[in-house]
């Protein structure tokens, strides 16, 4: 790991100020993706701004028909939260299935979303549940947030503050995980929300995406059979040593069926 300057601000405003000082400054959340990348010298920031000391960034709040989760809230806290378990069990189970217990004790929702790993779980949760990402500058709808592989709508100097999830009528997330890394080979979140049916797929392509044909079929009839005959073309899907594009296409339909079945 190359050397860097370390800063430990106590407020979002101070973190934003430190971030805009020039140089190649980066935010540090749980470090579960960033520190690994820095060790490999894939990432070499000049300044590291640790969000760990900023109290206002963590915690889970119920706000009317929404659950708001602070950016620094750890995966384990979301998985264990009584509020999330009661109102959006799909989200609690998604968070509880990320990596392993030690990763869940450090990794944060803000870090996961900003990183936008194509095989990460939270992107499917945010896109499938039609959540809104709140930053220190604006609100970004899920449909506008994920831009491509490791790419998001966040501008330089922008900090995720919280993510607000509207409580769905029903939802479930099912993933076919890589048994070694636990990341998604394919993960599907199917939800019936106030703004319509949504089906979000992670792990399969360069970034999370929705499947319009499945959403339409489920809007007509919420049943596993409705999606059983719908497949996503393999030509834009990933092929790697874990799974071919054709196999991923097959898994999308299977995971979607199971998610619809689970979201009773």
């Amino acid at each position: 790991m190359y050397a860097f300057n370390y800063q430990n601000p106590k407020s979002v405003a101070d973190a934003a100020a430190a971030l805009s000082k020039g140089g190649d400054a980066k935010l540090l959340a749980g470090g579960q993706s960033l520190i690994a990348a820095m060790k490999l010298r894939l990432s070499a920031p000049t300044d590291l701004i640790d969000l760990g000391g900023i109290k206002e960034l963590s915690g889970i709040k119920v706000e009317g028909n929404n659950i708001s989760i602070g950016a620094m809230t750890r995966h384990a806290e979301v998985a264990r939260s009584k509020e999330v378990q009661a109102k959006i069990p799909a989200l609690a189970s998604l968070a509880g299935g990320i990596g392993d217990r030690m990763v869940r004790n450090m990794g944060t929702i803000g870090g996961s979303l900003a990183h936008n790993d194509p095989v990460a779980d939270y992107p499917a949760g945010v896109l499938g549940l039609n959540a809104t990402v709140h930053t220190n500058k604006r609100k970004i709808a899920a449909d506008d947030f994920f831009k491509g592989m490791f790419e998001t709508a966040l501008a330089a100097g922008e900090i995720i503050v919280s993510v607000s999830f509207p409580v769905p009528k029903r939802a479930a997330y099912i993933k076919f995980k890589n048994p070694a890394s636990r990341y998604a080979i394919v993960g599907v979140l199917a939800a019936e929300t106030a703004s319509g049916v949504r089906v979000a797929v992670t792990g399969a392509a360069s970034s999370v995406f929705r499947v319009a044909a499945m959403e339409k079929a489920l809007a007509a009839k919420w049943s596993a059979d409705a999606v059983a005959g719908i497949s996503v073309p393999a030509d834009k899907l990933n092929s790697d040593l874990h799974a071919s594009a054709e196999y991923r296409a097959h898994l999308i339909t299977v995971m979607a069926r199971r998610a619809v079945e689970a979201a009773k």
Partner: protein
Amino acid sequence: MKISMTVNGKPVSAEVEARTLLVTFIRENLRLTGTHVGCDTSQCGACTIHLNGRAVKSCNILAMQAEGADIVTIEGLAKADGTLHPMQEAFREHHGLQCGFCTPGMVMSAVDLVKNHPNPSEETIRAELDGNLCRCTGYHNIVKAVKAASAKM
């Protein structure tokens, strides 16, 4: 940079480079070499310690992220008079180790597991220990040890 924290109940402080990993600080500055480095890529769990009561992989955390924290390593688990923690005792009793390399991380992870899942089923133990790899035992006796310890914790 100056860093201070409590490790196994004792306040410690030192001057470190910002890029120092927590595991390096524990092993090289504090000379607490019970915490092992198996992979250094956050896969194996051999470096698991408790940070403010949560099990975490110390190879994937900066020492600075633990500034002011309360840390427990494998050395801090037994009582001062040498009486083993029920989890350590159960690993011994049920032969939950062979070479012992993974054991400090396994034990620290298992203690956290039982704290969050009192009286866990075999299935829960297997699922929740998936961040700790063991090359020797085939896990069977580890699972037995965790189950036995959970009854005594």
